[in-house]
């Protein structure tokens, strides 16, 4: 499904990704772990198409399509979804309005008809209920004045609505208390399907107790340095990233 080959990326002359290779298959739940500054968030931004990054080499293919040639919105329409570590606030734009605008923009891009309002509301309400998002929150301006947990739930709500086929969760567990973590994880698990792949970026093993990965990759100094099963996460929890930092210094 997602194939990254020899990706080299820099920002303002600073090399962040150093020939990164990664494959995520259909239906797979892949996790990337690594110390701070190893380039995890950069990877998520580059896949989603943020402009500030300069791709010097390599390619990113989603079902064979070259993502690097596409704008961020085209990638979204192709099925890439990034749940942000720090979701943005958009003053004056009600969450409901935002959800409708994005859903219809994607449908339009894929040549599908726009949803009718009742149909749209039905979908939102169903998804909101599962994530324990109260209705009045949907009327408020997007993410404005939301708590950390509310923002993360709003991200997962968008994911549930937009039905992407490749989801990146960037440090989704940061800033969540235990209840919020459970709700968010259940929301993610409910979306697991044989047609959809996930890339979960996290610093801690905690999230992976709730969202159990098929594969765990360890990232350091802009490269995947080790790949294993879910037990690798537990191993890391015990030993820390010390072993991998050396690679970084090298």
């Amino acid at each position, binding site marked *: 499904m997602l194939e990254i080959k020899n990706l080299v990326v820099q920002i303002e002359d600073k090399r962040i990704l150093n020939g990164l290779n990664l494959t995520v298959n259909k239906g797979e739940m892949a996790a990337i772990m690594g110390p701070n500054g190893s380039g995890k968030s950069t990877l998520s931004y580059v896949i*989603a*198409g*943020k*402009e*500030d990054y300069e791709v010097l080499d390599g390619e990113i293919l989603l079902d064979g399509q070259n993502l690097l040639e596409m*704008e*961020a*919105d085209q*990638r*979204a*329409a192709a099925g*890439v*979804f*990034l749940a*942000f570590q720090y*979701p*943005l*606030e*958009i*003053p*004056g*734009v009600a969450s409901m*309005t*935002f959800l409708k*605008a*994005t859903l219809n*923009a*994607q449908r339009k*891009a894929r040549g599908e008809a726009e949803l009718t309002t009742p149909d749209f509301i039905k979908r939102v309400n169903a998804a909101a209920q599962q994530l324990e998002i109260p209705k009045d929150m949907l009327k408020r*301006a997007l993410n404005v004045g939301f708590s950390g947990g509310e923002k993360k739930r709003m991200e997962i709500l*968008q994911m549930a609505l*937009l039905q992407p086929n490749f989801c990146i969760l960037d440090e989704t567990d940061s800033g969540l208390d235990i209840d919020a973590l459970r709700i968010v994880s259940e929301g993610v698990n409910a979306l697991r399907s044989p047609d959809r792949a996930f890339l979960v970026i996290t610093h801690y093993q905690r999230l992976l107790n709730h969202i159990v990965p098929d594969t765990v990759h360890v990232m350091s100094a802009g490269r995947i340095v080790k790949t294993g099963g879910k037990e690798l996460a537990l191993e890391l929890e015990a030993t820390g990233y010390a072993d991998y930092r050396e690679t970084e210094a090298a």
Partner: protein
Amino acid sequence: MPAVQETIDQVRSIDVDQYKYGFETEVEMEKSPRGLSEDVIRFISAKKGEPEWMLQWRLDAYKRWLTMKEPAWARVSYDKVDYNDIYYYAAPKKNQAPKSLDEVDPEILKTYEKLGIPLREQEILAGVEPERRVAVDAVFDSVSVATTFKEELSKAGVIFMPISEAIREYPDLVRQYMGSVVPVTDNFFATLNSAVFTDGSFVYIPPGVRCPMELSTYFRINEKNTGQFERTLIIADKGSYVSYLEGCTAPKRDENQLHAAVVELVALDDAEIKYSTVQNWYPGDAEGRGGIYNFVTKRGDCRGKNSVITWTQVETGSAITWKYPSCILRGDGSRGEFYSIAVSNGMQQVDSGTKMIHLGKNTTSRIISKGIAAGKSENTYRGLVSAHRKATGARNFTNCDSLLIGNQCGAHTVPYIESKNATAVFEHEATTSKISEDQMFYCQQRGLSEEEATALIVNGFVKDVLQQLPMEFAVEAQKLISISLEGSVG
């Protein structure tokens, strides 16, 4: 920053094709001789069948105007207007005081239909959806061509008619109030208007009456080389309420056309006037050729105690806008509000804002201004809030925010805040910012194009003001803002 470069390129290509009201209507016109003189003023007055006092009023204004100088303090620059190269009166020939819509030139009705104002249907639909009805007075170049719902309004005692008719039919009311808010000698453009105004609307709401529908005037400049000088006078008698909306459009022309209107509002004790404007005069092309010079004097007088005047404006058109809808808060406990969205793109120049003059006790005012500058435009907020010695307990809150799109435009804030009363409390805040790249990326990651994302964020930015507009106009205004900004991002 490639996005910015593209923005610049796109901005270059816009404007001409964006203005969808730029068509011209073929109507036979009758015009005054070109230029301005006492004879031209006599001609206009005679055409309108005015009484002698009105003619005298105009002539006095003209004499005064000859001694005045065009103001130069606003942050706008433009080629000098040749006041002797303008037709001060132009009227569709067939229209000699139409008695009903059937007598109006069908070409003109078609024009209004194109503009989205089907006058005929307004009447036909009456009763179907009573709460949504809007009475419309349509002004085509210099004359009012059609006023709808006249009959029903008169049942409520509301007078809504072209001002030229009101001068003949209600001379006492007109004489009492006209010039009492914007004196003949007020400023260069207002004085010019006093001399040559051709038409406009007159509204009187009797004591205790809540006007049963929205009142609306659509102004259209059609003829070449004409200036439009309308004059509007709205009087809300004690305890009454009225909501009034004006809209404006003009064809695309290479030359600049002058629009110098005067609007006077009078609110007596406990009365409330809501005045909304959706201004979409032709802004000129990408190089700044053509477009309307919009030099307008609008002022409301909260004359009675606890009266309220609210100005709401959505300004997207005109090459140059010079406009400061103001409130004189004379009555104790009166309230003035100003909500503004000013969008400028291409080579447009906007210098707009308000004046809140607190004279009475416990008067309050509120100013919310949202300026959006794109292209190579200049967008200035200029406002005055003042409390005089006797304005004990005056309160003002001002918030003016500016948004810049691209780095070839300018956004400026020039507030004057003057308090002569220790018990007055004034708060003013202003910010200038841009749409953050992170916000844009977030929206795009969810599948919105750059243009859709910009429109969405801008609509959020102006929401506080849009909410002040009557529902149907809010939707129209929102579309208008999106159209005005089309192509401003790459």
